[in-house]
């Protein structure tokens, strides 16, 4: 039984270097195809997860006009027209659950000779609830601390690690832009959210203190709010829009604020990921195609070199279909071998690179399946021409002594 397959396949392993060379294009094609597909799958999951940290029921009113660009909400110009009073006005809308004015700025933080810069977010006591940020230690702001301009701070996880390491931070005094703040809480690790900012690299303080003592302005940058009932979100968005247009005395055309929902970010994000992954998939398929062409070239060469073998097989009774099948099978085998190695590299690569780039780990079942099918398919395509060439070999050449 073994001899049968040896006689059918033995020619393949005769030239090992060549076998390797013909396989390498396929390996690269399949590996990159698989890797890119896994990244694509993972990116989808990642986006969904990020949106979860933002929450579908959360909305932002942002001063200035905002462009959602590559999944990032970018404030294109600083506008000073969004006031704390606007936030108060929005509170009257029915169906709003939490609402927090936000003023964010850069801050230089000091603690016992340790210096660092981070983002300082001025918020109220509802902000943590609204964003669903859990506390690792300490407590949330109190309403009185917001109203009473108390210099208290909640540290992002990374900030706490950098300033205090393992030591206790609650009750300690840190300097934010030279002003002393008492630490009352530390956030649990959150990671990067839908707006692509690292939520572990921030300090939260009362917004009242932020706009007065720290930054000395009379406006806020944004208002975060969440709705009681997700179905009402579009309705509430309209109401907000109406109220603010009226308060700012502007029209829809030249309005100085923007309302951003999780939904909007998700949309743009999936669009960009999809565009990217289509592009990359096309390139990988091109790679695979070039690899297949390589197999065609090498197999054609091999057929030319093995004319005597083909001739003798025919003289001994092989039909055209036997020869066709033999060489087609060789091409499919070469491509499949490359495919298998490519898949292996792709899978190992995914398992290494996904965590490295902070992508959620997914085992790429679907990409493996598609790569396998594509590989076998391209093997057959690659093999057609050389296999046909092989059937055209005429056994009469065997009796030509100058051959």
């Amino acid at each position, binding site marked *: *039984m073994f*001899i*049968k397959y*040896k*006689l*059918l396949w*033995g*020619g393949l*392993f*005769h030239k090992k270097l060549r076998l390797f060379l013909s396989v390498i294009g396929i390996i690269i094609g399949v590996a990159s195809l698989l890797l890119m597909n896994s990244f694509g799958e993972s990116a989808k999951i990642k986006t969904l997860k990020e949106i979860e940290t933002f929450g579908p029921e959360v909305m932002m009113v942002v001063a200035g006009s905002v462009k959602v660009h590559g999944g990032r909400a970018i404030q294109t110009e600083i506008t000073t027209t969004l006031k704390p009073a606007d936030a108060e006005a929005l509170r009257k809308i029915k169906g709003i659950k939490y609402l927090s004015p936000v003023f964010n700025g850069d801050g230089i933080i000091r603690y016992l000779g340790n210096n660092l810069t981070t983002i300082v977010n001025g918020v109220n006591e509802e902000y943590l609830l609204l964003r669903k940020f859990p506390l690792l230690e300490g407590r949330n702001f109190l309403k009185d601390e917001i109203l009473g301009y108390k210099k208290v701070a909640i540290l992002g996880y990374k900030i706490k690690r950098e300033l205090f390491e393992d030591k206790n931070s609650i009750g300690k005094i840190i300097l934010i832009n030279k002003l002393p703040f008492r630490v009352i809480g530390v956030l649990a690790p959150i990671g990067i959210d839908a707006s692509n900012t690292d939520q572990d690299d921030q300090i939260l303080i009362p917004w009242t203190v932020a706009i007065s003592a720290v930054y000395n302005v009379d406006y806020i940058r944004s208002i975060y709010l969440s709705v009681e009932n997700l179905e009402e979100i579009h309705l509430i968005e309209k109401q907000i829009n109406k109220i603010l247009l009226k308060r700012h005395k502007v029209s829809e055309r030249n309005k100085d604020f923007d309302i951003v929902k999780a939904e909007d970010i998700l949309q743009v994000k999936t669009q960009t990921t999809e565009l990217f992954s289509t592009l990359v998939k096309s390139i990988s398929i091109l790679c695979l195609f070039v690899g297949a062409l390589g197999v065609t070239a090498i197999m054609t060469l091999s057929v030319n070199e093995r004319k*005597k*073998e083909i*001739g*003798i*097989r*025919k*003289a*001994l*009774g*092989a*039909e*055209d279909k*036997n020869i066709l099948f033999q060489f087609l099978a060789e091409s499919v085998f070469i491509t499949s071998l490359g495919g298998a190695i490519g898949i292996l590299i792709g899978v190992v690569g995914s398992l290494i690179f996904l965590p490295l780039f902070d992508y959620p780990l997914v085992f790429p079942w679907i990409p493996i399946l598609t790569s396998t099918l594509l590989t076998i398919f391209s093997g057959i395509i690659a093999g057609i021409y050389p296999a046909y060439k092989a059937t055209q070999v*005429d*056994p*009469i050449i*065997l*009796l*030509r*002594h100058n051959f």
Partner: protein
Amino acid sequence: MVKKLVILKNITKTYYTGKVAYQVLKGISLEVEEGEFLAIMGASGSGKSTLLNIIGLLDKPDSGIYIFDGQEVNQLTKKELAYLRNRKIGFVFQAFYLVPWATALENVLLPLLYRGKINKEDEKKAVELLKRLRLEKRINAKPNELSGGEQQRVAIARALITNPKLLLADEPTGNLDSKSSQEVMNIFKELNENGITIIMVTHDPEIADFAKKIKIIKDGTFIKE
């Protein structure tokens, strides 16, 4: 009455190189009975191999009739010709044409690949054949580890594994020294004595002497005896 294995009537064959036509066979007629041992001789380029290709069903004549083992072969399909080659004809070539990456044993079994299965019986038979040809120590050797004479003996074993009626040999000793040539011819003689019909092409009169009958090609036809 002795059966006629090969009947050729007025066979012609013309080759074209570009627009130049060259008629190699100009009406060859030949009858070979079962059990015969025929040597075909002739100058280089006289068409001996061309004729052997036709007899071996590897090529078709331009005109004329060829009846092989009672069957008119002109109308046969490629598939039917392949079947006949596999079942009834064994080939031995000047350049052996062993498959380089396969062992002696595997080479001998190659014709059976095109019958479907290769089973233990077949392997046994191949080993016996190799033993009969005094290759028992070379069963697992690759062609490049064998001498010319050994390679030709492997090729003979390959031709015999299918129990063919007809053995065709084109200059079987052309690449061999005289000792190996004698050896191969003795094998042919013994095979013929055991009933196999042999048609052999050769330049060498000494080799041709092993045959029971000699025919000479000249100017595209056989010289009359």
